């Protein structure tokens, strides 16, 4: 056990009035013209325990680039220079019907424990009025069957319904790949959230 000398500042709810304070240029669109990778859309809706749409949530995503590298000093993997302009952070709010959407690329596989590779995934944060701390989850891709089967985090989830809450389902709309990822804060279809 390491010595904790400094007490952590507790979280507080983001409340209902964050929108003008958390304006992020290009928030929902992570891809510039020159970014390498398969363009995908991520669409979803946020629900509370009664099945009512959550219309005042903030969703943030963090992901690797197409070759599985994070734009961060801690990731020492080499990356082709033309991928440099991808940062991998997105932020958007839910609309009046609880919908959100991101335009991004499909991330590559990143290193996992003991020389394994993780399945492609996106880290997701959910904030909302009535949510006392950032809810963290992961978005995996329904069509990555093989990689998903090898993934240490996914495999550790025994309940199949719960595991399925992390799988974004591939659909196609206007020839574009769109993954559907609904977030249920509570209830029978409750999304699995992680203690990070």
């Amino acid at each position, binding site marked *: 056990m*390491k010595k904790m*000398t*400094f*007490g*952590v*500042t*507790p*979280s*507080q*709810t*983001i*409340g*209902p*009035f*964050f*929108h*003008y*304070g*958390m*304006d992020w240029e290009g928030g929902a669109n992570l891809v510039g013209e020159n970014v390498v990778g398969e363009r995908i859309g991520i669409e979803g809706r946020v629900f*509370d*325990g009664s099945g009512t749409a959550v219309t005042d949530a903030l969703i*943030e995503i*963090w992901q*690797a680039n197409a070759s599985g590298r*994070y734009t*961060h000093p*801690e*990731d020492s993997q080499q990356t082709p220079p033309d991928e440099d302009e991808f*940062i991998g*952070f997105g932020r958007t709010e839910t609309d009046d019907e609880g919908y959100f959407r991101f335009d991004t690329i499909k991330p590559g596989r*990143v*290193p*996992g*424990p003991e020389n394994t590779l*993780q399945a492609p995934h996106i*880290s997701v*944060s959910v*904030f*909302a*009025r*009535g*949510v*006392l*701390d*950032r*809810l*963290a989850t*992961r978005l995996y891709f329904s069509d990555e069957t093989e990689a998903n089967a090898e993934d240490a*985090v996914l495999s550790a*989830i025994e309940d199949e319904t*719960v595991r399925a809450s992390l799988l974004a389902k591939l659909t196609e709309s206007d020839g574009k790949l769109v993954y559907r990822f609904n977030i249920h*804060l*509570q209830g029978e279809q*409750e999304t*699995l*959230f*992680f*203690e*990070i």
Partner: protein
Amino acid sequence: MSDAKFPLLHPDYKSTVLRAPKRPLIPLAHTISEITGPVYGHEKVRPLDNDLTRQHKGEPLGERIIVGGRVLDENGRPVRNTMIEVWQANAAGRYYHKKDLHEAPIDPNFTGAGRCMTDDEGRYSFTSIKPGAYPWQNHSNAWRPAHIHFSLFGMAFATRLVTQMYFPGDPLLPMDPIFNCVPDERARSRLISSFDLETTQPEWALGYRFDIVLRGRDETPMET
């Protein structure tokens, strides 16, 4: 378990009842996905973004304040070059937000949103006006104590923090269900800034100090 962790369901704060997950959170040992995070893309912060009193033609009404402090990790190391976003109500307790229906005046000279980056020592500073208390619908005669909303990234996905800063001696604090979501008194007290004569500028603004400690990105529930 850190004393800053607490149950997500707090029925006194009504909105948690249908929004708090009921299944326990699943511990996730940190991988590269959790120890990295958005540290670029913040270049758009401009020098005046941390002065909320100078975003319009005139000066906002209210008591001018300077809020500053340091951002540290659990080991006391400064968190350098990290972005802080703040937003708050105006001096009358009204947000610049279309869904805020509180019948208090909007101040044409105050939006109430700002950003800044920490320096090499983890220091930051905002100039603003003291936000007013405002009523909310949680229970009868419910008033939120004056507060400023803070959002911080830190160095990793794991260190992300959204919180609220309060003012010392506010009589509304003991009865505020949101402040009291944090059951541990010591942890809760870290949400209250302290009046700071050193930050206070003569003939100009009152100073408040608010130090923020982010979770270490290496900390996993197994370690504690």
